[in-house]
């Protein structure tokens, strides 16, 4: 495909007619007479480009970009499921898109926020939710601040958080943002949390809690989850559930029943809202009754007078984002839940796990599978035993040549040369079979034509890019 579309800044000219602003229809005054000269800008280096040129430029760029609608997007831990189109239609209804966050007469918006909180409560078992966090990592921060506040109000000093080595990188980063230091826990040979190590870490004192994802990033459900949460509670700690991997648990198993006190969800993963090329997402946080007072403000309460917004809660961790969270994302997730219903959600969990196990069973014939167990939503292969020094990166880049997106690579860190595959429930068997076919072919190439992998990708708009130089001499704008 043709590459190197010129930057938009190289287009346009001086006299472009654009039609996006109404004519000024009031009596105006000379700017210089009503605004001090020192406040006025002189030049503005933004081109004037015609509408046709703009549209063609960005359509061309869209054609050299891969999305879920292009094909399988097996990015592990990202849950790249299909994004239903009805979600987009509803989000664009002017009765939602034009509501101002500070207007009254907003009952429709508040009711939706209240109802989806109830639904997420049913799905996770949690007693109260905030919908404010803008993304998963933002939700993690909120959850950890809740833990911090919980102990602060009790006058207890606890400044450490236990995080397994298989955790998402956001976990330790979020814990640090909430002022905690981190105790990293090594997973055992089953990819699970070793109870003896856990107890040892807790006995060192000052541990506020643990952050876990279950199933974990190896795609494995921790069989001792009830013991883990019990032990943490016995030592006076709280248990945080990273909901990035909730998809396979939908309608199957609930974080609160596992013993968790706090959970964040990624609506852009589990609840089908589009990933948008990296966002916007939404990261609601659910808590047990005991922790409800600490949720961020504002909270929506159901009273005799209808829904009211509570800004006055003094135990709250405070505000964590302006206004109400990413409402139009929450709206899409609400539409998704309505469309699927309780039974549909359960089927999502089931088929997500079926698809992952099917793919795993077929791929492990030719690739090393370090944790060979029934998996949940995802599984992790590695580049161990590949011939001719072929690496995970070579495999990933070669997958692009076949017109698919690559799995998550070099994560989780507990597996060297990891290839983390999450197909999601919305891939058909046919799509999975094609992916297996490509992976098998690449495995054969690794043996017989290794150069093809080392030079890959060869069929993409650009070849493998020089990341080292890019970081050494950063060029970040034109």
């Amino acid at each position: 495909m043709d590459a190197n579309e010129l930057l938009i800044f190289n287009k346009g000219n001086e006299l472009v007619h654009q039609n996006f602003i109404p004519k000024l229809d009031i009596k105006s005054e000379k700017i210089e007479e009503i605004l001090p000269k020192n406040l006025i800008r002189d030049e503005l280096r933004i081109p004037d480009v015609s509408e046709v040129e703009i549209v063609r430029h960005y359509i061309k760029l869209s054609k050299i970009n891969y999305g879920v609608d292009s094909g399988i997007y097996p990015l592990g831990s990202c849950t790249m499921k299909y994004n239903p189109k009805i979600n987009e239609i509803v989000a664009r209804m002017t009765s939602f898109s034009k509501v101002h966050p500070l207007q009254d007469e907003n009952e429709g918006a508040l009711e939706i926020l209240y109802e989806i909180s109830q639904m997420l409560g049913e799905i996770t078992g949690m007693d109260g939710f905030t919908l404010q966090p803008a993304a998963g990592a933002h939700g993690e921060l909120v959850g950890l601040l809740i833990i911090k506040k919980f102990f602060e109000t009790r006058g207890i000093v606890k400044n450490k958080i236990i995080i397994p080595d298989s955790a998402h990188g956001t976990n330790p980063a979020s814990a640090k943002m909430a002022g905690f230091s981190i105790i990293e826990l090594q997973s055992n040979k089953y990819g699970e949390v070793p109870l003896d190590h856990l107890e040892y870490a807790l006995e060192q004192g000052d541990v506020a809690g643990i952050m876990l994802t279950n199933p974990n990033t190896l795609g494995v459900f921790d069989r001792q989850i009830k013991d883990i949460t019990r032990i943490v509670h016995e030592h006076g700690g709280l248990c945080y559930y990273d909901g990035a991997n909730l998809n396979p648990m939908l309608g199957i198993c609930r974080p609160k029943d596992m013993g968790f006190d706090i959970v964040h969800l990624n609506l852009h993963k589990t609840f089908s809202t589009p990933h948008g090329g990296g966002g916007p997402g939404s990261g609601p946080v659910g808590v047990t009754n005991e922790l409800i007072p600490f949720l961020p403000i504002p909270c929506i309460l159901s009273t005799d007078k209808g829904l009211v917004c509570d800004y006055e809660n003094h135990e709250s961790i405070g505000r964590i984002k302006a206004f109400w969270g990413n409402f139009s994302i929450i709206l899409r997730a609400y539409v998704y839940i309505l469309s699927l219903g309780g039974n549909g959600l359960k089927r999502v969990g089931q088929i997500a796990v079926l698809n992952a196990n099917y793919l795993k069973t077929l791929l492990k014939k030719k690739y090393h599978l370090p944790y060979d167990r029934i998996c949940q939503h995802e599984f992790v292969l590695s580049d161990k035993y590949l011939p001719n020094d072929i690496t995970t990166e070579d495999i990933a880049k070669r997958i692009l040549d076949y017109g698919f997106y690559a799995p998550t690579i070099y994560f989780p860190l507990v597996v060297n040369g990891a290839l983390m595959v999450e197909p999601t429930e919305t891939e058909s068997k046919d799509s999975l079979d094609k992916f297996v076919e490509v992976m098998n072919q690449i495995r054969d190439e690794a043996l017989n034509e290794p150069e093809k992998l080392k030079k890959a990708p060869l069929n993409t708009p650009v070849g493998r890019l020089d990341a080292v130089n890019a970081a050494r001499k950063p060029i970040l704008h034109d």
Partner: protein
Amino acid sequence: MDFISHDEKTIAEMLKVINVPKVDDLFQDIPKDLIVKSLNISDGMSEPDVLDKMREYGNKNKIYPHSFLGAGCYYHYIPSLVDFVISRSEFYTSYTPYQAEASQGYLQAIYEYQSIISRLTEMEIANASMYDGSTSLAEAAIMASIITGKNQVILLEGVHPEYIEVVKTYCWGQNIELKITSEDKLNDVLNEDIAAVMFQSPNFFGDITDGLVMSNKVKEKHPNCLLIQCMTDPTCLGLLKPPGKTNIDIFVAEGQSFGIDPSFGGPGLGIFTAKKKFLRKIPGRLVGKTKEINGDRDGFLLTLQAREQHIRREKASSNICTNQALCSLSALIYLVSLGKTGLREIAIQNFQKAHYVKKAIALIPGYKILNKKPTYNEFIVKCPDINGLIRECKKMNLLPPLQVSTYYPEMSDVVLVCVTELNSSSSIEKFIKAAKLAINNEEERAN
């Protein structure tokens, strides 16, 4: 409707390959007593039923044809091509472009976004986006603390009250001491232990501060103290001197005005920019331009990832992962659509129209404009009968201005008026009439 393609026969075939008898067997690792029987959520609905239900909810929100409400979320015209471009599913159904070679389109667009934000603000570097203006300001405070190694920051009154609350929460999390003071008293609290001074211009009440005066004031006393400016409606940059020209170290803004619908306040767009010397401490994603390893073609990729959480974990400068990419794409298309000519025109119209309303309101007996500095498209007014004004606005189908008492109870008779290019002269005249009627009604009641 569950968006799943398998029929029962396919499922049976797949189970056979996996070599388990039933789907339930795939959940054998889960303790039996944890398995949920069923969710207490109604059955799935058809598309037409969902749409009907959503329309019913939508009808419970009142949408006004004209608005005088801003306060951090603004109604500006969105060119049709913005939604057209962001609706390309190659863009909106993709994720963070980890595989650069299959994501060149989006990466180039983000590079263009970083470029256009740098050009608009004249700041040396811009990241790929943050969640919103409020969290950008909070992350800027943290960044300043990391850069200077100091844990006190000053925030000047006039920052959006919700932003102040967010900064408070983040600072508490990081054990950073936050001091809130007025511009007049800045000199008294500014000392060498301060990491940064944060201010908003145009501020929540509409006042424009000359950034250069502010930076001279701060830097003369403490050259190493960082100056952070925030902004809630950056359309003003079509007219006002950009932060890059006034020695601002970190500039953040809410970018919702750039082609993003209000949608009850989210998603917005966190614009985050800084001087180049702080590059390696900036939070969030950065897209860079580079070349092929084995060729000459230019390409784009995520760069300087060693700052980020997925590499550095607890040593990262921020925990941000998912950002607001699609919103930054909206902003890019918006800014390109308007071009420099349009951006100037829109800023001038916002300014002129707000100025017109301000003058007209000032002439009505009983009203008093409270701003002491120049303003852009927002200003504050003391009203003789605030409830009357709100009522009259609604009667005329105008979304009323913000009652400032929402945030500052002591300012019980003050409104924050916002006028944009979308306020036609007829809506403006209605608003002025509403202001007049509000007093007359009060007089009638008094009589």
